[in-house]
């Protein structure tokens, strides 16, 4: 397998554009450019993680009680789903480098399937929270049994960040679905832009891994709070 990989590896790049010295510089520019975007995303989510850290340190017990309403099983399943999708994207990039079109499409389709699964599970979780009046708003906490004894206002702060952060993450999943769909379409149409150059697939992959990265931190912070002791 490694030998095959090596044989194909030398021609997996696109045409060299005039402003670049060589293909390494060209590919490096793409990668650094994409990471520049991802770093802005890190800061974007980072501010929310900071708010989370601040308020959780202030209202540990209330947040712990409030978080008990979240379903660790569903959160865990979603984590597995996202990890698998991250792997299939990595495989898609690998097959893009090897110019194995069928396997690229297969892996991208599995990724899309994982993204939809994630969103469906998330929708069920959100629906239950709305039903229990745990969405921040005038009727928040009107079913006290779902607050588990937590102060309603501090719990509301927790759910504000829960919906804010997981919602923003879900928006990123939606954007990922659009971008991966477009990429899959290009592969299905045998477009030169993706067939002759693995970089577009690689860049979409970087974005999707970032979405996975955010969830890797969201899952333990939202679903797996340790009991204050």
């Amino acid at each position, binding site marked *: 397998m490694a030998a095959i990989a090596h044989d194909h590896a030398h021609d997996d*790049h696109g045409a060299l554009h005039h402003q670049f010295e060589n293909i390494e510089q060209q590919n490096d520019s793409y990668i650094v450019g994409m990471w520049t975007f991802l770093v802005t995303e890190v800061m974007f989510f980072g501010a929310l993680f*900071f708010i989370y850290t601040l308020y959780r340190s202030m209202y540990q017990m209330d947040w712990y009680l409030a978080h008990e309403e979240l379903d660790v099983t569903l959160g865990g399943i979603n984590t597995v789903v996202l*990890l698998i999708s991250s792997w299939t994207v990595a*495989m898609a990039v690998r097959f893009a480098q090897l110019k194995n079109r069928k396997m690229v499409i297969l892996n991208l389709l599995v990724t899309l399937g994982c993204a939809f699964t994630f969103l469906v599970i998330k929708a069920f979780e959100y629906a239950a929270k709305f039903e229990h009046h745990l969405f921040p708003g005038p009727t928040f906490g009107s079913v006290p049994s779902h607050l588990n004894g937590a102060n309603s206002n501090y719990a509301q702060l927790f759910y504000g960040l829960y919906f804010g952060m997981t919602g923003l993450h879900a928006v990123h999943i939606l954007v990922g679905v659009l971008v991966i769909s477009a990429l899959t379409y290009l592969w299905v149409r045998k477009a030169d832009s993706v067939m002759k150059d693995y970089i577009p697939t690689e860049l979409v992959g970087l974005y999707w891994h970032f979405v996975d990265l955010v969830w890797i931190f969201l899952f*333990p912070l939202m679903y797996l709070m340790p009991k204050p002791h």
Partner: protein
Amino acid sequence: MATTPLSTNTHGAGGHDDHSSHISSTGLLVGVLLLLMGLMGVTIWASFIDIPSIGPIPGIVMNNLVALAIATVKAALVIWFFMGVRFASSLAKIWVAAGFLVLFLMFGIMGDYGTRKFEPVQGWEVGTPVDGGETALPRTWPPEGRTPGSPAIEQNLRPR
């Protein structure tokens, strides 16, 4: 090569004839996936355990540190192997590291919040009935006190 500041990676130094990208083997990617799944299991398990305090560090902080350490290892695995940073040029590596370094520095703002209680001049948080300290909550308390004529309004507390 002297005029190509971006191509600092030693792997691609051979120029046009050398292969420009590196391909991860299926075995490695599967291994990383299984490792990530295993770490997810460990972090779920660890969250249900009351880790004892170590020295001056309380147990709850230990729990949080363990959870964040595992998440950081998982993130590093994704960045290094799935995102292919191990094959990236030195420039891209520094770029990535700088992004996370700035994130780390931003958390230094926590120090500011930690010193608020030492302020010689009392801030706007004075008189919050709940715990006497700063809160993100509206100064009217309890929430139903927001209606005109309520004690909160008479005490000139800031409405929501």
